């Protein structure tokens, strides 16, 4: 047994988190900043933070992840990190020549009280930021929220520090991507194109974290939302935020600053959430949904009809991040499956409320917890008490899956031991198809593995 010390008996813990279902803010900020073209993320803290975040993102994407650090030593920690950040800005523009440096803070710089707004202003006043270049920032203390909060904070920083209202509206709509994969962002853009809606998507990590092998390392890959696009978001007709935790804060901030009205929908994972996304986007843009999209939807529903017997009543445990878990849970319910245990380390009452609303209506007996005490150790204990047929979550789930001999689908962040997530989307109807294919694949492999010889089926 890999997790041999995990007992069945659940005891309340107030001090100790074991096997967390979350990580810290800065990595989310780093990921969001990579979705801006020509941007170098910068970690204002000790070297270890930057090194750990780059390593984790690299293991997840199998791609270069460029980011710099303020390399705090004890002196900087005592006297403040301003000198380190100013020196970093000099070095970065001279050596790596980005269009934008996106600075995020860490627990260290937040604890000593470094003010990124003030330091960025000083850098500008001191002439350290070349003409046409930018230093943007987001406060991302690791002791608040989770990696999802950090993503939301950086996206909000991007929206408010670039978005301006010229008073002349542009015929375009903003879509703010919640924390999703480059493949998902690419799919959102494709869907908008098929619908004929002119959008600015931000952030956008497609063509950044799924870059082709060309024999050259492009320090700033082709992808990412451009400065020109970002400057125009304040003039857009509307904003659609995909996810209330990771995307909505930026939409609210942009509405406040530039009066761009917004609406939030769930990340389009699964049938119902994608339906709502398509409805809202087509209505906002005043376009008719083309037959092509209806056919895509039809293909997903067709599979759901044809394979329903293999899905019905299957018990699922899942863990991950709020904006994915909500539509994923709904999709499992649409598939007639049974979400039995749900855990997310990301705290927040809004998420709790939304999930309980969904569960109360369709699966009131589901165990659900988020925030304090909601870790994978608890999930594992729940699974020991009420076993499941399927586990869905990030790579760390494989230890529980092996110990409990439960089929396992990798979904969420980080996925350190498989590829595919950066290339094949989970969003949209085609993403739904991919999810159903994956679920059926592991469930049917299990049936094949466990079937008695006389019950072994050729056709399924």
């Amino acid at each position, binding site marked *: 047994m890999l997790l041999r010390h995990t007992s069945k008996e659940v005891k309340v813990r107030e001090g100790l988190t074991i*096997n967390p279902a979350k990580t810290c803010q800065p990595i989310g900020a780093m990921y969001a900043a990579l979705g801006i073209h020509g941007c170098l993320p910068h970690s204002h803290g000790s070297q270890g933070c930057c090194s750990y975040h780059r390593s984790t993102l690299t293991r997840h994407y199998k791609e270069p992840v460029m980011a710099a650090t303020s390399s*705090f030593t004890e002196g900087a920690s005592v006297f403040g990190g301003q000198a380190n950040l100013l020196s970093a800005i000099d070095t970065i523009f001279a050596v790596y020549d980005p269009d934008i440096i996106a600075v995020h803070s860490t627990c260290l710089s937040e604890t000593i009280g470094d003010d990124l707004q003030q330091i960025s202003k000083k850098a500008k006043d001191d002439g350290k930021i070349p003409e046409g270049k930018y230093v943007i920032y987001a406060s991302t203390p690791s002791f608040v929220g989770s990696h999802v909060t950090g993503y939301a904070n950086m996206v909000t920083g991007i929206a408010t520090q670039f978005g301006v209202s010229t008073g002349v509206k542009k015929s375009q709509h903003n879509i703010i991507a919640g924390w999703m994969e480059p493949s998902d962002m690419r799919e959102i853009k494709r869907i908008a194109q098929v619908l004929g809606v002119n959008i600015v998507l931000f952030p956008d990590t497609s063509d950044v974290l799924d870059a082709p092998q060309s024999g050259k390392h492009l320090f700033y890959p082709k992808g990412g939302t451009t400065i020109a696009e970002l400057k125009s978001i304040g003039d857009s007709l509307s904003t659609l935020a995909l996810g209330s935790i990771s995307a909505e804060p930026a939409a609210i901030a942009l509405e406040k600053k530039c009066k761009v009205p917004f609406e939030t929908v769930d990340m389009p994972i699964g049938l119902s959430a994608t339906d709502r996304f398509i409805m809202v986007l087509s209505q906002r843009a005043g376009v008719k949904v083309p037959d092509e999209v209806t056919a895509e939807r039809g293909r997903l529903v067709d599979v759901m009809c044809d394979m329903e017997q293999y899905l019905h009543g299957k018990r699922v445990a899942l863990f991950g991040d709020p904006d994915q878990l909500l539509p994923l849970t709904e999709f499992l319910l649409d598939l007639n499956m049974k979400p039995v245990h749900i855990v997310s380390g990301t705290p927040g009452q809004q998420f709790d409320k939304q999930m309980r609303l969904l569960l109360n209506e369709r699966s009131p007996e589901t165990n659900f917890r988020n925030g304090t005490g909601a870790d994978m150790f608890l999930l594992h204990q729940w699974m020991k008490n009420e076993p499941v047929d399927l586990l869905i979550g990030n790579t760390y789930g494989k230890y529980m899956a092996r110990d409990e001999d439960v089929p396992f689908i990798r979904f969420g962040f980080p996925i350190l031991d498989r590829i595919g997530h950066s290339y094949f989307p989970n969003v949209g109807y085609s993403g739904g198809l991919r999810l159903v294919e994956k679920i059926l694949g592991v469930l049917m492999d299990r049936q094949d593995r466990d079937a008695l010889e006389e019950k072994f089926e050729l056709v399924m």
Partner: protein
Amino acid sequence: MEANRIIPDPSKVREELIQKYPAKVAKKRSKSIVINDPDTIPEVQANVRTVPGIITQRGCSYAGCKGVVLGPTRDIVNIVHGPIGCSFYAWLTRRNQTRTESLMDENYIPYCFSTDMQEENIVFGGEKKLKQAIQEAYDLFHPKSIAVFSTCPVGLIGDDVHAASREMKEKFGDCNVFGFSCEGYRGVSQSAGHHIANNGVFKHMVGRNNTPSEGKFKLNLLGEYNIGGDAFEIERIFEKVGITLVSSFSGNSTVSQIENAHTADLNVILCHRSINYMGDMMETKYGIPWMKVNFVGAESTAKSLRKIAEYFGDEELKAKVDAVIAEEAPKVKAVIEEILPRTTGKTAMLFVGGSRAHHYQDLFNELGMTTVAAGYEFAHRDDYEGRHVLPGIKVDADSKNIEELKIVPDPELYNPRKSDAELEELREKGLEINGYEGMMKQMTKKSLVVDDLSHYESEKLIEIYKPDIFCAGIKEKYVVQKMGIPLKQLHSYDYGGPYTGFEGAINFYRDIDRMVNNPVWKMIKAPWEKAGNGKGLSASYVTQ
């Protein structure tokens, strides 16, 4: 002479590497970029601060303490006191394999423990939550040991992890609880954390169990972390030759082994950088000499085994070592002879760690490959130039705040295993007793040595030298591969290994052969790109 053919003019290379830097940065970096001469060994600036904004390979003190040194011991509950990230990122990412005797023996390596500090803990202090966490870990698991690791904010808000640990240790009575002040901002790299870890392990673990260890030839393996099963291969060989491994620091180790380490008669050191403090402290307190060895490379393994036999001075052991080497050699030879024609003459670069960039040169030599440039991520001058430079190294502000334990001989347990005269005699026979000659002595003349290589410098080096393989870590892996050059990870081994001993050498030969000769590197360009994509072509079928 091979080297002269492939190495570009190194002084020009150095100029090119620093050209783009602001003047002050260029001046600083130029001292860390030197042209090697194994006879004179020039000075390398090392273990100094990285310039902010430079994209560095380095991590932090916490990573060196918890991640490297303490992480591999399976039966300690390692609680990280801080916000969630630090514990999360160090969770199972270092591939320290471990093997328990029974399926239910203590093993906490697959677990991640954190106090998950929240804003109120930062404002009002986190000691209460820490003690609560220690109590809960004790109640849940009843481990032999609980270690507490401080992250950046802990030192700043003044939480006393040592006092909290002492209090809980006294309260429990049957669980050793101890803390490490390894905040990420201490020192200039992981190296500070190694030192802090050495101090803590020495203070709180070594010497707690005086039961004499069994065996005739008893040693500790220091600075071996069982990445990819390296320690298993070394254990296999030791067992075969009849050497007793009392404890390992810290691959595949247990608390009780480390507590008993002072009963061994020799410490052999693999990773000098991360563990040399332990060697020195055990020598002073208990009289156990240490000796630098290298089990990376088949020839190096054979050499190291012979040195160990020489140290113990036992003819039977010497004969057994020779017999085992003779037994292992044919399978190594069979593989290298097959591979050698495909790897000979190729070039490698190694920028990694604090000893791996040295050790792995032995394997590349065995493959007939030349190391044209190398450097460490977090080493000190002695790892480059040899320990004779130690007295001359200035202790700067960043090193000063890392505690130097004052060690004196133990009044009861100090027992010099060898007399000074015997040690001198062994040194004359070529044994690196309490010494290390460093990396540069082994590298060719005019090869390049770069400390704390930056991202920018790595891309430049690849452009200039076009090496056949580049060795570094995960952050560099896909950057280098995007440039069409295979990168071998020497932290994680690309999830392969082991690479130590005889079996490990075979694994490495095969992996490098596979990597440098993989046809995929020739498939990067599409056929139409190779053909000029439309230029000068006439269409075969054109609609009118």
